[in-house]
């Protein structure tokens, strides 16, 4: 009687996505394009944060564009278009995260060399986007003061893959009894040493610091 055969394959399950993302990152970086993947739960204020970012960049004559992922509706793309930047909506129709192929398909007829920055606003979800590389150079995790200081401990996987974190709606910190030091310590516990920005699109807090971070990261691309 024949025995079953075990094949040791040792392959990354998301190999196809990883390989495509790597190829995309190489292309983006060679064009001097800094791509940012923005992840957070729904309601953190990703769209407002992005709109403020795009408006300030454009006001300085720095070309930037965005693609925005949502399960349904193109409301976010319409909100963002008010900034004057080119914006594309990716509707995932039920899928809880973006994958590299979806991003690539939506960039097809843009001349990427025209932009300095491309922002990808991921689907609002703190679990599913974690494992999907979208070819970004920077992953930004956002956390609003209304969500509580322990979010990073509840979703360590996502915070752990981020390069930088932004606490949003910091102007509401007092009203929400949000403890900044605890929040920072929690982020540090799951991603030791990561830079954390305290931001508010209402007061403008932290936004210049964020733009300075972007400029530094873009300067590191060396196209």
């Amino acid at each position, binding site marked *: 009687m024949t025995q079953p*055969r*075990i*094949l040791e394959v*040792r392959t990354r399950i*998301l190999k196809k996505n990883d390989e495509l993302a790597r190829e995309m990152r190489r292309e983006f970086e060679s064009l001097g394009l800094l791509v940012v993947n923005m992840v957070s739960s729904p309601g953190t204020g990703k769209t407002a944060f992005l709109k403020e970012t795009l408006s300030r960049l454009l006001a300085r004559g720095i070309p930037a564009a965005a693609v925005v992922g949502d399960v349904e509706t193109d409301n976010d793309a319409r909100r963002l278009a008010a900034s004057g930047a080119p914006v594309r909506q990716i509707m995932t129709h039920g899928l809880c995260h973006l994958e590299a192929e979806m991003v690539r398909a939506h960039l097809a007829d843009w001349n990427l060399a025209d932009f300095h920055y491309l922002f990808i606003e991921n689907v609002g979800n703190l679990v599913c986007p974690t*494992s999907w590389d979208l070819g970004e150079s920077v992953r930004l995790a956002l956390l609003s003061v209304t969500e509580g200081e322990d979010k990073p401990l509840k979703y360590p996987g996502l915070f752990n893959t981020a390069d930088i974190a932004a606490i949003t709606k910091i102007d509401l910190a007092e009203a929400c009894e949000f403890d900044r030091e605890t929040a920072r310590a929690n982020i540090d516990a799951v*991603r030791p040493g990561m830079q954390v920005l305290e931001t508010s699109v209402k007061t403008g807090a932290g936004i210049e610091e964020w733009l300075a971070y972007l400029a530094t990261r873009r300067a590191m691309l060396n196209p």
Partner: protein
Amino acid sequence: MHELSIAMNVVELARGHSRLHGDGRISAVTLRIGRLSCVHEDSLRYSFELVTEGTPLAGARLRIIEVPIRIWCPTCEAERELPGIQRLACPECGHLSGEIRAGRELDLESIELAPETTP
């Protein structure tokens, strides 16, 4: 439910490998899943059952090896396994370390090819 996408990728990969070896039935699949990878085991099992239906993997056993997080502690100069996932601190000295050596795996480890049935 990103587990559905993961399960679909597993099926595609496993079939790709089995095609090189006679394209028969696959009777088991072993995955290595790191604790930081955000995969829910029950959802993955459910998705796997769903997407293998009508494929050479139908009815295949799904083995999942959970991989704990291991960090490099620069103070102790040693690799340490962590009991949880919420604090990347050395369990011996408490030093926080972002140098992750294991725990992010999302790998197809092996597939088991069923013996060919004799006529």
